[in-house]
């Protein structure tokens, strides 16, 4: 991947915003004039004097090869949109630089430049011109744009009379027929009905597969997984993680969904106990880190258990839940005719080996429990931390509501009987 020609090259990019108003904070005509006539923006010196600044982005440096489809994820306000705005040349960076090789189009909203008083037909030309198409290009694509929007009957109706869905359809139809080398897309797929969202995603993957470079900001991890081969995780204006989509997204989901960083159990504070879980880890060929699996292979969960007092009839339970709390799988030390576990005090490792864990990529929660069957006493009950992360590539390209639970490679064939 590194030998591919570079499409976007970013060096030390940063953007500082002023917090508060330009007027009424002492920044009147005089302040404006002095700012206007100062030759250097000199971010460091003024930042120290004036604490009313916020760095939306800082020290961003990375290269994106030609043809890469890169997702940008992160919580609200971490600078995702600012990055796209700088790369779209809507606003200047405060420091650093970026080079973009080829014609760049940005899709930061649906229906850029639309005017409500104008008809659908007129707005196709206007929006196309504003987004960088020539008149000849719009003429050439006009029929395709209309077909994509499915608004043939309303072409001569002013856009202000359109429903919001129609407006979005027309807007995306124009944007979908821009023909850039680099496409910058902000969260625009969050609008429209599901079937239209699906067509937008399809269109974007067409663009991606035609070898264009795409930067795609989204909060929809399903869309990111489906479209992007690499993903940048931004946090507080900096690159937190940049790598293959499956891994980055999974790590992001794990953390943003409230997981703690430590690998130690935190659910029980009592110092007096008969038995408790200490940690968990994975064993297997495709285990990427202690809690991440990156391929569809056999995997073994190993739970460390500390037993202080002898247990005559021990019983372990183990479950995998998805993020919605749905039980995906459960197993126990009793299964397949195994009996109670007589344990003396000491440290144990309980292993649950699965031949395959064909779940769709994402973060999962593990639950482990341990009982003494004598007196049916629950000795420890642990929501294992951190979460299990499955970072294998999705084996099917299902969309949105058609995403199932399992991630199984399927061999398809057809014959005529």
């Amino acid at each position, binding site marked *: 991947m590194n030998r591919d*020609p*570079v499409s976007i090259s970013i060096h030390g990019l940063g953007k500082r915003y002023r917090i508060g108003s*330009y*007027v009424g904070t002492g920044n*009147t005509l005089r302040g*404006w004039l002095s700012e*206007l006539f100062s*030759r*250097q*923006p000199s971010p460091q010196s003024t930042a120290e004097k004036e604490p009313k600044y916020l760095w939306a982005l800082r020290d961003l440096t990375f290269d994106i090869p*030609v*043809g*890469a489809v890169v997702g940008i994820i992160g919580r609200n306000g971490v600078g995702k949109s600012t990055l796209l*705005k*700088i*790369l*779209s*040349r*809507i*606003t*200047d*960076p405060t*420091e*650093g*630089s*970026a*080079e*973009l*090789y*080829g*014609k760049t189009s*940005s899709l*930061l*909203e649906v229906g*850029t*430049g639309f*005017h409500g*008083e*104008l008809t659908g037909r007129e707005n196709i*030309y*206007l929006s196309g*011109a*504003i987004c*960088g198409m*020539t008149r000849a290009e719009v003429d050439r694509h006009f029929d395709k744009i209309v077909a994509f929007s499915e608004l043939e009957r309303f072409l001569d109706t002013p856009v202000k009379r359109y429903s919001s869905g129609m407006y979005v359809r027309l807007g995306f139809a124009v944007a979908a027929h821009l023909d850039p*080398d680099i496409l910058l897309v902000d969260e625009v797929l969050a609008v429209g009905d599901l079937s239209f969202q699906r067509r937008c995603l399809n269109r974007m993957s067409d663009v*991606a*597969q*035609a*070898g264009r470079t795409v930067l795609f900001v989204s909060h929809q991890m399903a869309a990111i997984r*489906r*479209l*992007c*081969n690499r993903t940048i995780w931004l946090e507080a204006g900096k690159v937190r993680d940049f790598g*293959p*989509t*499956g891994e980055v997204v999974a790590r992001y989901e794990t953390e943003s969904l409230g997981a703690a960083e430590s690998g130690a159990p935190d659910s029980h504070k009592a110092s007096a106990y008969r038995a408790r879980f200490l940690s968990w880890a994975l064993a297997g060929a495709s285990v990427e880190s202690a809690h991440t699996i990156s391929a569809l292979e056999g995997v073994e969960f190993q739970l460390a258990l500390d037993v202080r007092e002898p247990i005559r009839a021990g019983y372990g339970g183990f479950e995998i839940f998805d993020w919605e709390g749905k039980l995906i799988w459960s197993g126990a030390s009793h299964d397949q005719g195994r009996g109670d576990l007589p344990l003396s005090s000491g440290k144990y490792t309980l292993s649950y080996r699965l031949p395959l864990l064909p779940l769709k990529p994402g973060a999962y929660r593990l639950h482990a429990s341990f009982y003494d069957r004598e007196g049916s006493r629950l000795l420890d009950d642990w929501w294992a931390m951190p979460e299990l992360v499955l970072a294998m*590539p*999705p*084996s099917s390209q299902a969309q949105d509501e058609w995403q199932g639970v399992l991630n199984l490679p399927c061999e398809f064939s057809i014959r005529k009987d």
Partner: protein
Amino acid sequence: MVSLRAAETGRRVTDRTKPDSSNVTLIRVRSGWEALNLRELWSRRELLWFLAWRDIRVRYKQTILGAGWAVLPPFLQMVVFSVVLGGFLKIPTDNQIPYPVFSFAALVPWTLFSAILSGTAGSLIANAAILTKVYFPRLLIPLANVAARLVDFFVAFVILVGMVLVFGRSITPAIFLIPIFLLFLIVTALGFGLWLGALNMYIRDIQMLVPFLVGLWEYASPVVYSANSVPPAWRLIYALNPMTGVLVGFRWCLLGTAPPGPENWASVVIALVMFISGVTVFQRVQRNMVDIL
């Protein structure tokens, strides 16, 4: 990875393995002043026409009179001024020219001037929705406003020529000098408008000031009266107003009154300085205006 392989195959098919080195966009910190990128402006000239066309379409949509509105305001002003100023107050004109055509010859260019000036000053804010979402040379917005207003001007100008003929004056070859004064008018209006527009980004008071300013400026220019009514002692200061030269010039070309005197050259310099500095300041401000809008 599955999706990666798909992207690579696609690239081989379309042969996009090399970036187009002739088409590199460099994004960097810009400091100080910068020359206008005329080549970029020229490459997006089609957008200029689209934006101008949009302004005109939108302005006259759902109106009954349509393009009649290009003529009606100066025409009604002319009627009122003729009754009050020409009729009641008997304001003198040059060479006994009837007051209606005398004032209309100045009201038509003045209407264009006032429309360009206030349109330019407010155009960035009016187009904030587009400016925050897509990049194109920002100067196209005020330029499109000029183009759209010129269309109105040409409609009104035809009526003006008709009035000159109706009032028994003849059209002389001097009419071909009109474009010079028209250009002077546009340069002046854009120069002041770009300054005001740039300031307006930071200080919205400008927005309130502009209509007021246009009203005052109208009285400081020979619109409803003749420049010859100005006492000789004030003539030199009066000539510093670029619109004095423009309006005297329009009357000269259409009505055969005295041409603008040499004292008006100073106002040409003022207009050019305002225009060049206005474009420069605008270029400087537009760079980060999205953060302020």
